[in-house]
Structures are given as C-alpha cells and as structure tokens.
C-alpha cells in the first residue's frame, strides 16, 4: 500500500485536492494544454474534440456562472442531462467552485427526481428542454430550488428558467480554484436500499486519490491511451471512471452520445482507436447475441484491455470474448459508497472466470458472519471492507444513523455476500437485502412499490429481482388489484409504463404477476423472499413469521 499511496500523493500539489482543478488546470500546467481531453461523438456520429485547455476554460466558465447565481460552497447543484459535452464542463466547474455536484440519469421520472432534488435541498439544476417539464412539474414541492438552467436553447421566460448559453456567454474563462481540502464534499450520487427512499451518498475531493490510483493500477491507463467508459454520468462509474480517474491522469477519453448499437460500438472502437474499454456485463451479453460477423469484421487491433463493472460477469462472456475478440474481459467490483474499484481482475492476474478478482492496493476485505466473526476461506458470508480507503463515502446525506449502522466492529458492511477461495480470489454470491440489481443498476423495491400504489387500480404491491440471462436480475412486480377489477393486457401495460415514467425506464417491470394478496409477516413487512421463491420455483426457507 505504501508505494501506491506515495505515488498517488504525488498527484496532490500544494495540498490542492480539488477534483475540478486536478482534472483540468493541473493537466495544463503539466504541459498537456493542447492534448485532447475528450473526443465527443454525438448520436449521429458527428465528432468534436476538446483539449485540456478547453476543458479548463469551459469548466471555469461554469464555476464563475454558478457563483454569480449566488451559489455558495457546499450548496448542491444537480445535472439532469443526457450525455452531452456540457455535462462534463458543468460537473468540473461545480467542483471547482466547491459546490456539491449530483448527477442524475436522464430517464428518471418525476418521483425519482423529486426524491433526489428534495432530499438534497438542491439549489440549482441544469437540464435540457426535453427534460424540463419533469422539473417544472415538481418545482412547487422544491422550496430550496432557486435556479433551473436550460442547456440547449431558450425557453419562455414565464417558466422561470435561465438560459445557460446567455449566462455562459458573459462568464469568464478564468477562475482561480480555491484551495480545497481532502475532506471537502464533492460528488453526490443517490443509491437505493431495500427500505425507505434512495439515500444521497456523499463523497469528498480526496476521493480523487482512489480513482486516480485504480485507474492507473487496475485499468492500467497510460498517457497515450484512448479510453472509453460507456457508463452514463448519472452513475458512480460515469463520474469516477468516465470523468475523474482518466482526466486526473491526463488521458484522452471518448464519450459517445448514442445508445447501445453493436455495429456503431465496434465502428467507434475501431475509428477512435480505443485502447481501453470499460463497459458492463449487460452490454457485453447483448453483444454476445449479435451476429459474429460484426466482430470478425472490426479491426480491434488497438484495443488492449476490456473491463466490466456493475454486476457479476458470467464466465460465458469471458469465454466469448476470448474466442471472438481475442481479449480477456476483466471484471471489477465496487459500489456507489466505495467511490472507486475495490476488488478486481486486472492484466497480470490470471482470470478465474466468474470471480471478482483480488483486492486493489490498500483495500482490505473480509468475509464476516452475521455475528461479526471472520470466516475461513471458502465460507459464504458478508463482504466487508476495512474503512479508510481514500474514496470512502463520508455520509448518507441527512441520515447519520444509517451511515453509522454500515460500520460495525471496525468494518464497513457492503450488503453484498461473497466468499474467498484459498488463493485470495473473491467470488460474488448475492445481496444480503432485497435491492434489485438490474443491468448493473441498483433499484429499490420500495421505490417501485410506492409508484405502483399511486395507481388507482392497485391495492397492494411488491417488487423483487428475479434471475435474468441478460439483465442479471429483472424487475418482477406482484399486484393486488382493487375490488372488482380484473387483470388485462392493457392494465399490465399501464403498470409497466407507470413505473417507467415515475421511477425510471430501468425500473420497468419485465413481468407483472396479479395476486389475490401480497404476503406479509406479522409486522406487516412484505415477504419478498417468499415471492421470489414462488416466482423462481426455489425453496422459500423459514416462513414462521408469515402473517396468517
């Protein structure tokens, strides 16, 4: 750990931990002002390049703009945007101004948006015209929200919004980033638990040490690499490895505004000479289903490594990649709370298909029993981490009690279960709670159930994650209809669309099961375990607490 820590500490000049500064100004000072920081390819294939100097100036404009609006250190600003260049500039600018920057998946519905903007008492949100309506609809419920900025053109003044372009035009491209300590709050992501609303996971500027170190040591990025991380910036991977890690190393990143398309993706890797590619198991499994000709025709000679994150990587994907892409796929594991990769496969470490790999430098995991005892190799238990890694989250915003409960007897409890083999490889086993991991995104069953209960047709509801060959887990909902109503394809569709529009398209139920009752225990808690067992045809285990 010592050598890695020392190397990472060299990143920090004069105690300046500011992520925005390190990713831009510091790169320019190191002689990389003219180097391409970002190649932006929009959904139609049009390409723009931004140097580190441009990244610095654009983010400076945002820092000045945010401060000119009266925002102060520690205020929360959210980016509710599809992938677009301004997202990166605004993110770094907010951090330079020592604001807390939250990012939101553009497909979030009004309920998900309200939960996040309301809980964080966000002061400003940057969005686009197409997404504006969702923010305006909930604005009356957001008394702390002072500013809504629209990124792509003018909107009627009566809407009470600000035109970003007009403000940027008069904002200076010069900004002296204030000295920022390691513990200064930086990035905010919301994560789902099995109970209650999503919680705001707060990170600090010192997390850059973790992201920088793992980008170099695990992803193996070198100065001449072209890196493509496919993650949306709404998620932790999109900020830790789609912004911070690579730019803290002065590496050129490709960002693509389009969605999944096997042909376009392979063409992009070939044309942009992507050398390190970071994606997700669901995307890789989708690629596996495509015509092999697409991959045989692509020139992937510049592609050195492929990494994956989000959910366990099936051995089949690794074998497929070895056969067709002639590359290993290295699975990595981390959480919103950990801020950076904790356990990973990596070049130089023989891959054991299906394993999470071994701990990153400085990370000390353990497999613990429910009573806190450390379990021997081979035993299945709670995956825990010794606190103190640089990118460890610092709070669940406004929920100190829940934060403290995550740390017991000197260990952070991840909520995942795993085992370690005798050679030190970790193997993911599952979740110790009811959180649904679909396509690498954690979804709270509570959020889905709450959305369903808004429907006048629904009397009771429950949501579970069921195994799925493509998504890892798919959302399955159980619904008890109000008296007199009967199930129909139209109602099933209405249920799916309601969840999709209120929560997020990612939360869309893939299966709707109508039931006469929703099983609960004697305390009134939904017995999701029973529903899951019933749906998958597996054993339900102890049912002694089931309500009669």
């Amino acid at each position, binding site marked *: 750990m010592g050598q890695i820590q020392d190397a990472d500490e060299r990143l920090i000049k004069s105690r300046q931990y500011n992520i925005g500064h390190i990713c831009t100004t510091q790169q320019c000072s190191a002689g990389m002002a003219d180097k391409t920081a970002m190649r932006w390819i929009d959904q139609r294939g049009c390409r723009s390049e931004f140097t580190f100097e441009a990244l610095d100036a654009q983010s400076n404009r945002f820092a000045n703009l945010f401060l000119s609006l009266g925002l102060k250190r520690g205020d929360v600003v959210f980016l509710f945007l599809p992938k677009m260049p301004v997202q990166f500039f605004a993110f770094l600018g907010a951090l330079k101004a020592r604001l807390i920057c939250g990012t939101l998946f553009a497909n979030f*519905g009004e309920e998900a948006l309200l939960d996040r903007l309301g809980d964080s008492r966000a002061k400003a949100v940057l969005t686009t015209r197409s997404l504006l*309506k969702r923010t305006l609809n909930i604005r009356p419920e957001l008394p702390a929200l002072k500013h809504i900025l629209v990124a792509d053109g003018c909107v009627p003044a009566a809407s009470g919004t600000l035109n970003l372009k007009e403000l940027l035009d008069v904002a200076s491209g010069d900004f002296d980033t204030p000295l920022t300590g390691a513990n200064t709050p930086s990035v905010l992501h919301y994560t789902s638990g099995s109970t209650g609303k999503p919680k705001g996971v707060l990170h600090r500027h010192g997390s850059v040490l973790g992201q920088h170190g793992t980008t170099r040591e695990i992803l193996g990025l070198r100065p001449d690499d072209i890196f493509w991380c496919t993650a949306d910036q709404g998620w932790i991977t999109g900020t830790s490895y789609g912004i911070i890690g690579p730019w803290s190393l002065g590496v050129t990143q490709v960002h693509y505004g389009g969605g999944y398309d096997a042909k376009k993706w392979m063409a992009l890797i070939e044309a942009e000479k992507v050398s390190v590619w970071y994606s997700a198991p669901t995307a890789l499994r989708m690629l596996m289903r495509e015509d092999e000709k697409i991959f045989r025709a692509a020139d992937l000679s510049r592609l050195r490594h492929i990494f994956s994150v989000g959910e366990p990587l099936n051995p089949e994907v690794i074998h497929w990649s070895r056969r067709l892409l002639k590359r290993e796929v290295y699975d990595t594991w981390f959480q919103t709370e950990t801020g950076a990769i904790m356990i990973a496969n990596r070049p130089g470490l023989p891959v054991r298909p299906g394993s999470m790999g071994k701990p990153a430098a400085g990370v000390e995991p353990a497999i613990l029993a429910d009573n806190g005892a450390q379990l021997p190799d081979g035993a299945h238990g709670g995956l825990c981490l010794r606190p103190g890694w640089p990118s460890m989250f610092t709070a669940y915003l406004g929920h100190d009690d829940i934060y403290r409960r995550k740390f017991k007897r000197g260990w952070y409890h991840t909520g995942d279960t795993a085992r370690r083999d005798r050679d030190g490889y970790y193997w993911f086993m599952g979740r110790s709670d009811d959180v649904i991991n679909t396509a690498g995104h954690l979804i709270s069953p509570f959020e889905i159930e709450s959305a369903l209960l808004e429907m006048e047709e629904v009397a009771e509801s429950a949501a579970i994650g069921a195994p799925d060959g493509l998504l890892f887990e798919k959302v399955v909902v159980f619904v008890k209809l109000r008296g007199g109503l009967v199930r129909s394809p139209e109602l099933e569709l209405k249920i799916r669309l309601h969840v*999709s529009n209120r929560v997020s398209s990612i939360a869309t139920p893939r299966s709707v099961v109508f039931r006469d009752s929703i099983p609960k225990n004697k305390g009134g808690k939904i017995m999701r375990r029973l529903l899951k067992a019933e749906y998958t045809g597996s054993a339900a285990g102890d049912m002694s607490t089931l309500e009669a």
Partner: protein
Amino acid sequence: MTQMTRREILSDIFRTVFDDPELEIGPEMTADDVPGWDSLSHVNLILAIETRFKIRFSQKELLTMKNIGALLKLIEGKTA
C-alpha cells in the same frame, strides 16, 4: 379505433410511453430524435403498440425497422 387514424393512435402511444403530451412524431424520425428512446423504453414502446393494435411483431420485423415511417407501414400492413 375507427375515429382515430393509425398514425394518431401511434402518436398517442409515443406520448404515453415517453410521458410527453407535446411529442410530435414524423415518418423520418428515429430513436435519435426522441428523448428517452433507449433500448429499455423501446421494449415498452413495442409492447404498447402490440397491446393497443392487438398485433405481434416478429424479431426480424423489429430488427429491420428503420424509422417511425417504417413502423407505421408495418402496423398498417398488420391491421389492414
């Protein structure tokens, strides 16, 4: 269904699926032109069309659909 043309019904489906009552569709439009039209919402869209028009698309038909105009043509062929 007799009072609304197929195009009007399709437009209504798009507005419901993408939760945008002002969404205007055109024959040349693709997923790139509709905010939120990703692989996840595409599944909802197809399911909504199949349910509303009481039709089924084959995998091949789904793969060869290039734009909304082609989608409408396909619907017209199945409901004629």
